């Protein structure tokens, strides 16, 4: 808040009518109760405190500013300010060619980079009607599911750390989850050479094939991870402390979920059985058997249950892929030899994938050259965050952290 706002917040009378509330943004917003910018210390005791859960905060999951209006300990309104991580991805999509951009695409959702790259590459292939060989499709499914496991490990660790303190039980679960995530990242390192931002996909297939001995290592790692998930559930499942923090907190009703446009575990935790892998299968997902976990309660605990079950389903899919991986080329196009190699004829299209956080989508308008004319990125977390002003008011400050963790935003996706 600027100095002016801070003074206005403590003086009766408040900000002059019609003046912008902060940084040039108008004071009211449709649909969401605009927080009064004054403290009315009156007979009714309507005393409100505006607190900044600022961009630098241990549990902001990135750079996110939430201006909370508090009445005592209860949050009355939330104003979300984003854009601290804006890096002009969509403009980069116009200046970089189809062979260059996949490595950049992974930096939107940097926690689940494989699905981010997949969204871009799938969109380009859709517009250009490029075939992807079967082996490449299976490899894409393999890495996407491994990435989902790794991303959910990070989610569980950071969420428990937010709720339990960096010096406390939360940190314990965080380190256990990191231990498992490191094992999966070692797998990715053996496959691509990089741990976090892979550049694995290219238009027409994938860039890397499985090295020798990788399948055995993968199976061993998956077995270990599956056993450890049992341990996490033992630590959290019936834990009364955990349950009181998450049951009934941050309830997204079914109608709200569909209206605001959340996706992924958020909408599946609210009773809508929508999974892009099931409803619009891409990259041979129809060949695999898995169940789509759905919970109806809509609170943080339901989303937690959905993600824990997704762990197991992803492990199931990985095993099926490893068992049924066909031989063949990993790309329908020769390897990248020059920067303008891939030219996509005129057209436009949108491809969506089920990322760890929800629907990640990419809309490409191609004009026949080596670069898209326009690229629009639908980040899952951007739409998921839109639900916060609806569900947070009424809860306590401590619940804000629990809710944000269960929404699991990654700000690379939000701000692009």
């Amino acid at each position, binding site marked *: 808040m600027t100095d002016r706002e801070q003074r206005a917040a403590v003086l009766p009378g408040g900000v002059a009518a019609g003046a912008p509330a902060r940084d040039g943004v108008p004071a009211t917003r449709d649909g969401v109760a605009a927080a009064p910018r004054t403290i009315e210390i009156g007979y009714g005791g309507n005393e409100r405190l505006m607190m900044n859960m600022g961009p630098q905060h241990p549990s902001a999951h990135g750079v996110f500013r939430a201006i909370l209006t508090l009445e005592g300990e209860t949050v009355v309104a939330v104003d979300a300010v984003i854009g601290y991580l804006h890096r002009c991805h969509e403009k980069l999509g116009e200046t970089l060619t189809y062979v260059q951009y996949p490595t950049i695409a992974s930096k939107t959702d940097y926690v689940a980079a494989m699905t981010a790259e997949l969204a871009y590459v799938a969109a380009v292939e859709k517009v250009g009607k490029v075939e992807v060989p079967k082996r490449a499709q299976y490899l894409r499914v393999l890495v996407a599911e491994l990435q989902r496991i790794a991303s959910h490990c990070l989610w569980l660790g950071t969420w428990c750390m937010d709720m339990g303190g960096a010096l406390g*039980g939360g940190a314990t679960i965080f380190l256990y989850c990191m231990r498992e995530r490191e094992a999966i990242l070692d797998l990715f390192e053996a496959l691509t050479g990089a741990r976090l931002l892979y550049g694995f996909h290219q238009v027409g297939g994938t860039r890397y094939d499985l090295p020798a001995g990788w399948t055995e290592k993968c199976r061993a790692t998956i077995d270990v991870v599956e056993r450890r998930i049992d341990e996490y559930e033992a630590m959290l499942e019936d834990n009364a*402390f955990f349950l009181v923090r998450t049951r009934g907190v941050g309830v997204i009703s079914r109608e709200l979920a569909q209206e605001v446009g959340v996706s992924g575990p958020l909408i599946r935790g609210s009773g809508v059985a929508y999974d892009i892998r099931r409803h619009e299968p891409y990259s041979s997902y129809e060949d695999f058997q898995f169940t789509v976990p759905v919970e109806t309660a809509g609170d943080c605990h339901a989303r937690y249950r959905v993600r824990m079950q997704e762990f197991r389903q992803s492990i199931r899919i990985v095993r099926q892929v490893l068992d049924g991986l066909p031989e063949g080329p990993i790309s329908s196009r020769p390897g990248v030899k020059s920067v303008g190699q891939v030219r996509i004829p005129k057209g436009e299209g949108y491809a969506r994938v089920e990322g760890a956080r929800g629907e990640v989508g990419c809309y490409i308008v191609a004009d026949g050259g080596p670069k898209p004319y326009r690229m629009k990125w639908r980040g899952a977390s951007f739409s998921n965050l839109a639900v916060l002003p609806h569900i947070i008011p009424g809860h306590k400050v401590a*619940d804000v952290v629990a809710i944000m963790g269960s929404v699991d935003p990654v700000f690379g996706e939000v701000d692009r």
Partner: protein
Amino acid sequence: MTGHLVAAFVLLNAIILVVTYITLLERKFAARMQSRVGPYYVGWPHGWLQPIADALKLMLKEDVVPAPSDRWVYNLAPVVFLVPCLLIFATIPFAPDLGLADLNIGVLFFLAVSALEIVGLFMGGWGSNNKYALLSAMRAVNQIISYDLPFIFAALVPVVLTGSMQMSAIVAAQEGLGGWFVLYPVIGQLAFVAFVIATLAAENRVPFDILEAESELVAGFRVEYSGMKFALIQLGEYAHMLGTSFLGALLFLGGWLGPGPAWLGPVWFLLKAVVVFLLVTWVRWSFVRIRVDQILAISWKLLLPATVVLLMATALVVALGGGRGA
């Protein structure tokens, strides 16, 4: 008179040394529970010099005082916080005759003085002129006051069983095989469990550490302190932690009683206090925290009635002749 001064000086230094190294113990213990190593390189190979390095760092840090803070309150808060935390050690006897002031109302003095830290805490939160600090100080006052009552009642169970508030008498009443009060059927165990839970809350340890809640309020009332003042607050916290561990070992685990010659007594005492401390640490590193209204609900709706009933049951047992009265 000088004898007392010298003894007090020695005791103070001993406490500070033990407190410093107990932070290292906690860090190593927590690290092993989290599949990692903990402090290692400083004082290779197991981080023996890490606490010294931390203390030096805090002493050399610049003391940043926020401009709009309430000067007197802000500067006095660490001292007001620290003094009760160190004063409680005065009443603890480390061996049958080795105690600074083995008052015959020892337990009462301990419990009363240890509750005074809340004043220093609130002064810190208020004087910092920081919304986060204030929020956390308000939560702290709520929480510590709520949990002092079950703490007192749980600590009173051994007192009732012994019939005296003098700490050495309580230890003397635990002589004999299986004499420790924690082994006293039903009442002893329940009282010990209640004591540990109340300690967790009185010490702002997870799951009751809503006071600091690093991920929300980033260090709570301590957030505006740096350098030596922060060191004093840390010292006070861990000293209080150690003090209640000593009290727990004394009330429930038999104090200095143990096999071997009499001079081994203080060693046993220290070991038992460390066991209580590690128990509390183990709980701390296993759970997520709960919200402040849930903390208060546990205290008023669960723990307080339970400890009251427990105390009445103890009184009944003693009246029926089961006490270990001195």
